[in-house]
Structures are given as structure tokens and as C-alpha cells.
């Protein structure tokens, strides 16, 4: 069987889901025998998301213009998109800024009202991506194939989700072991 073209992306999340992925320890060696890691902040040095990806783990919600651009590309170029962790599935902690309203009150609060030294709004077009008004879970922006909640999803849950996919089957996302939030 051909190797599975495998990717992971990191949007608005803390990287904890990726740390939990690495926490699969020696099973990563097993995984490496079945996949080509074609894009990943922890497993590949490629800078551009490639075409024809089979499986992609997406950590984080959609919080800024870079996240938005990347997730649209991921969706176009991926067969199975997995919403990986609570930030991807619910928008989670990054979305707690949504309670303040749009991007402007959030930036003002963080950089002007709470700025101790030289308060100023960040503005570097092309370098610092603009915030979207709201942080959104992935499935509110593009269709998602598999939801894997958890903050972070424990390593066993990640493995139990990936293993069936390597055999060409869909995992069963059911029960406390697989879908508990938090």
C-alpha cells in the first residue's frame, strides 16, 4: 500500500495538541513507517502546504487572516481533515476574546489599556496578520471530516483515531475515551 500523505497544521491553539501528538512516543516510529509527513510544524521543514494530502490534523481555531488563508488551502488540498483538539472543535480558550466583541475592543484592551510601556496598536501589514473579528471553530469555516475533542486530546486518543485511518477505515468517535471535552 502507498504511504499515507500526512500533515499537521497549527492555527490558533497553544501547541499543546502537537505536544500531545509527540507524546505518542515510540508509536511515532510505527506511524513513520506508514506515512509521509508532507507538512507539519513538528515533523517537517516544508513551508508550503502541498497538494493531495490524505490526512491532516488541524490544531487551533481560526483567529486571524493567516489562519483563514491556510485552512482554506488545507481544505482544498486534503481528503480527510481532522479537527484536532478543543480549540479546533469549539474555538476554546482563544475564543474567550469573542466575549469582548470584535477585534478592535480586544486589541485596545490588550495593547492600550493594559500596555504598561509605550502602549500602541500592532500594525505591520504583511508581517503581523490582522485579527478576525471572532475566533471560529474550524467547522464554522470549512467542512470537517472527523472531530477529536480534548484539551489536549490524550496521546492514546490520537493514536486510536489515526490507527483505523492507516488501514483505510474511519475511526469511531464515541465514549469518554474518544470525545470528552476539556
Amino acid at each position, binding site marked *: 500500500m502507498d504511504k499515507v500523505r500526512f500533515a499537521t497544521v497549527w492555527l490558533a491553539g497553544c501547541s499543546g495538541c502537537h505536544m500531545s501528538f509527540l507524546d505518542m512516543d515510540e508509536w511515532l516510529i510505527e506511524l513513520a513507517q506508514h506515512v509521509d509527513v508532507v507538512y507539519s510544524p513538528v515533523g517537517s521543514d516544508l513551508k508550503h502546504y502541498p497538494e493531495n494530502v490524505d490526512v491532516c490534523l488541524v490544531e487551533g481555531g481560526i483567529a486571524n487572516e493567516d489562519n483563514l488563508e491556510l485552512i482554506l488551502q488545507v481544505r482544498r488540498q486534503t481528503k480527510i481533515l481532522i479537527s484536532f483538539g478543543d480549540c479546533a472543535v*469549539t474555538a476554546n480558550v482563544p*475564543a474567550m476574546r469573542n466575549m469582548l466583541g470584535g477585534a478592535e475592543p480586544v486589541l485596545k484592551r490588550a495593547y492600550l489599556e493594559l500596555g504598561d510601556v509605550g502602549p500602541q496598536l500592532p500594525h505591520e501589514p504583511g508581517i503581523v496578520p490582522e485579527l478576525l473579528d471572532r475566533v471560529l471553530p474550524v467547522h464554522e469555516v470549512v467542512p470537517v471530516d472527523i472531530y477529536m475533542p480534548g484539551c489536549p486530546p490524550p496521546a492514546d486518543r490520537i493514536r486510536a483515531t489515526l490507527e483505523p485511518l492507516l488501514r483505510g477505515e474511519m475511526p469511531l468517535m*464515541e465514549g469518554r475515551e*474518544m*470525545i470528552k471535552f*476539556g
Partner: protein
Amino acid sequence: MSVKTLKIDGIDIAIEEGATVLDAARQAGVPIPTLCHLDGVGDIGACRLCLVEVGGSRRLLPACVTEVAEGMEVQTNTPKLQEYRRMTVELLFSEGNHVCAVCVANGHCELQDVAIQVGMDHSRFTYRFPDRGVDVSHEQFGIDHNRCILCTRCVRVCDEIEGAHVWDVAQRGAACYIVSGLNQPWGEVDACTSCGKCVDACPTGAIFRKGSTTGEKERDRAKLDFLVTAREKHEWTR
């Protein structure tokens, strides 16, 4: 005492008149998910999680406030009910601000438990992100309205068991929230005896003991059961 006979998911049951469909289902060992129901206090049918299909009725009926009747045929787990229950739970999550990762109740939360029970892996409804408050004016406890699902267990336990009636519900629809006293900060309500029964009754992380952090809220539900049996059956030891 007259007895009614009925069928729940095909199982024959005999139970005393006046019992609810939920009582009968529990007696028969048929699990029906519930949230606003709390053993020992009155039922009000607030959460709609316990909806069942009853032969002859076109409406779905909440098991916790529907009395058994002779010859009733009840279905508790049809595809339609499974779908409605999951939608109900998704609506609860998208209505408030549930950030389980940083919640006192994470891992001990009845809302999380029912989400798993109904198979919710994500919410199909758009999250509202409402602007809600937190009141930590009480010396020992706090209430975080972001996590309140308006089940009114706190209202009923405080009124019916403690007899203090500190809590009530204000406003309507999406603007509803739980108030203490005459819509005062909790710490200023003289009627509150600081008994902590509302902390034990609250199914989520909305009412908590100060000083507990993520995942640390574990409630002593047995305490409420004990108080109710003490009162009803005069059993004074635990």
C-alpha cells in the same frame, strides 16, 4: 395504593400511581439522560433532555414530569429522540460559554457526561459567546454565569431543602439568568446560610467553592440524598 402497568422500550413495569415515567424507567433499569432532575427536589422539566415518545401522543413528553398511566407504551431511545437529545446538548453548549479546559468542574461535570452519553463530538449550532458575569462577592462561594445552564437545581435545593430561597430566575428567553436575593450580589444576601447545598446541586462548574481551580470541583451529592432520606424516612445517620 393503586398500581399502574406500562411498557417502557418493550419492558413490562408495574409501579405505584403518581410515579413519573422517569421513576418507572429507573426501576426497569432503562437509562434516560437527565440534567435538571435532582433526586430529592421537585421536577420542573427545564432541560428537555429526558424527552420520550408515548404511544398515542404526537408530542414528545419529558419523562421527569409525566405521570405513568395504565397501558402506557413508552419509547426512550428512538433515532428521533437520539437526534433531539444531541441537539439539546449542543444548544446548551452553544448558548453559554463553556470552556471546559479552564473549568472547575472539568472531569466532574454532568453536562460533559451527557455530551458523551449523547455522542456529541462537536456543536452544529453557532456559538453565541454571550457577555455574562461572575459574582464572587460571597465569602466562600462564587457563581459563574458563563457556565450556567439554567437547570434551576440551585433554586430548588435552596428553597425546598434548605428553606432559604436565595436563588431565583430573572428575565426571559436568552436573557435569563440566576439571581441571588433581590438581584443583589450573593455576598449581600442575608437569607443565605452558607450551607453550600447549591454547590453540591449544580451539575456544572457554575457554582463553585472559592479557591478551587481547574478540575477541582467535586460535589458531595450523597449529602443531598442523605438530607432527603433523613427528612422523609427519619434516618439520621449516614
